[in-house]
């Protein structure tokens, strides 16, 4: 099942994705403007690999995740899953695809129904999609719980009886219950304690190796992303600023935003006080429409043309893309 893609190693291809949200004002709720939450976002995820999507809060990472899961309708652009554009699929057409793409949310306290036992929560997907009934479903449930390192008797217990790390394991089991090939992980470890984070990271890695899963890993923690992901895309205010294989991005960052982001990672090595490239504080509210580069006002190498025109997403090296005039010229 997992090796169906013969010549196409890419499991997901997103092209020029756009989502604008209207800002409504006044008594008649007239549309006063648009928030360009996701604008011209493109990336690819290779079969069995992990793409890391990083950026500060409010940059549109989660909106991208929701668009891929079709929890939101994209305004423009293609979402090509296994060679088929699902961007304009109706609810009915989406149903068979739903089991292929699953999500693990950030907050394991909010994403499990407190009135449902663990077993019911995990089985829900199977029930809705009509997969495996009766005894076989029970067998499957036990297998899933074992896979994520929980004992089978936890199926009859309620979410409040578990710790954060255990709940996140349950959420992962629920996502895997329908045999997905792509799992979107939206900040899956940021709500967990430091000593638990490593457990979940290891679990995600093991499952990827065993089941050949592909991940879209959304995070703001660059240390985690640098450890886990094969490719990294850096988002800023709704656009991807730079995208490259992990090693390349850290060794040879080309976009000034990536540079300042990398220098701001708190390094757990004392004494090594590196120079931090501090950004100008962002004084502006989210503007309704952008003219020119979105990094303007904070960019250390800004030029007049940056205020006028936004450059496209240009190739600057092997599998390395950046959205910056200077980077493209080098």
């Amino acid at each position, binding site marked *: 099942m997992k090796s169906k893609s013969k010549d196409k190693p890419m499991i997901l291809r997103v092209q020029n994705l756009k989502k604008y949200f209207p800002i409504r004002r006044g008594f008649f709720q007239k549309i006063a403007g648009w928030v360009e939450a996701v604008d011209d976002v493109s990336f690819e995820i290779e079969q069995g690999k992990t793409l890391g999507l990083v950026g*500060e*809060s409010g940059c549109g990472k989660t909106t991208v995740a929701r668009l891929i899961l079709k929890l939101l309708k994209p305004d423009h652009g293609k979402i090509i899953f296994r060679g088929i554009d699902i961007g304009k699929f109706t609810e009915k057409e989406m149903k068979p695809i739903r089991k292929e793409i699953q999500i693990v949310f950030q907050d394991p306290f909010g994403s499990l129904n407190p009135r449902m036992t663990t077993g019911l929560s995990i089985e829900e997907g199977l029930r809705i999609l009509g997969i495996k009934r009766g005894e076989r479903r029970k067998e499957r449930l036990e297998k899933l719980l074992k896979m994520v390192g929980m004992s089978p008797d936890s199926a009859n217990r309620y979410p409040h009886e578990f*710790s954060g*790390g*255990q709940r996140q394991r349950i959420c992962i089991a629920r996502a895997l219950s329908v045999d997905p090939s792509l799992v979107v992980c939206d900040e899956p470890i940021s709500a967990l*304690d*430091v*000593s*638990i*984070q*490593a*457990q979940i*990271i*290891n679990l995600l*890695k093991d499952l990827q190796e065993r089941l050949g899963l592909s991940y879209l890993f959304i995070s*703001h923690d*660059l*240390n*985690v992303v*640098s*450890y*886990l992901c094969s490719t990294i895309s850096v988002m800023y205010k709704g656009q991807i600023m730079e995208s490259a294989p*992990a090693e390349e991005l*850290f060794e040879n960052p080309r976009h000034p935003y990536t540079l*300042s*982001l990398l*220098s*701001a*990672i*708190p*390094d*757990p*090595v*004392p*004494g090594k*006080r590196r120079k*931090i490239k*501090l*950004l100008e*504080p*962002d*004084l502006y509210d989210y503007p309704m429409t952008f003219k020119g580069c979105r990094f303007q006002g904070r960019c250390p190498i800004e030029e007049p043309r940056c205020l006028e025109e936004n450059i496209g997403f240009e190739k600057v090296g092997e599998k390395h893309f950046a959205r910056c005039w200077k980077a493209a010229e080098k």
Partner: protein
Amino acid sequence: MTNDNTLISVRDLKVYFRSGHDCARAVDGISFEIRQEETVCLVGESGCGKTVSALSILGLIPIPPGEIAGGRILFQGKNLLELAEEDMQKIRGNHIAMVFQEPLTSLNPVFTIEDQIGEAVRIHKNIGAGELRDRCIQLLKDVGIPSPVQRLKDYPHQLSGGQRQRVMIAMALACDPDLIIADEPTTALDVTVQAQILQLLKSIQETRSMSVLYITHDLGVVANIADRVYVMYSGIVTEQGNTAQIFHDARHPYTQGLLASLPSRSKRGKRLFSIPGTVPNPAYKPAGCPFHPRCPHAIPICGKEYPKMCDYGQAHLARCPVLFEREDGYK
């Protein structure tokens, strides 16, 4: 251990919370001290008692359900735990100030920035309206907020997350305190903003020669700003030392495990070390060493005897006699 320049010294502090028959021993006998012009970090996971320790310094533990079960907090020759509320009010905000984690929830949405920064000054210092306003402007300037005069009339919702945290710091600085307690001040912020705030705290500390008690769970932040570190686990201090000792020469299995489990680029492809199990519930702590059920070096005695602090010299202490004796054996 008590130096002349010790600013505040917490001795064997115990804070318990009772509900019904349960008694959660949130802080179970911790001792630490902060010297003048020093940055001390309390590191630990959620529920280990970091915040409770900080709140008890300021006398902000709700009693009941809370209960100060023992210990002393010595500040300028006085035991803060025995002070009357009105005396405590003279210290709170004036000599010791606090910066909280969530800038949005700790700022009052219906008052302007000027009202909120000025509040502490109005209470503690006797100065006129014009002078107060100048002071607020200067404070906003000090924390790096552009066009401070216009900002004075703003409400918290008009500022970004980083700006709000700067305002919180300005509020804490308002009365020129001797000690600032910063409780996870950057946890809710983005990395780039976090870097700005950390740098701001550092420069303010240098120019005003204050002490900072910094509470965090992020070891990366600790390595960047701390002079000395106290690692906490389940209500006790498991290891203490200067930053280099903790990061390069950790002696407690918990500290060692935490450091080994941090993901980084250099560990790519390798399996991460992970500490098994979970943090114990403070109401049902294991007997003996609270870390022993998760500890790779545990021997039967760890489950029976409360571990004593072992001295590794140069003020580096760790609460693990097992590793301490093993080391001695090698020597």
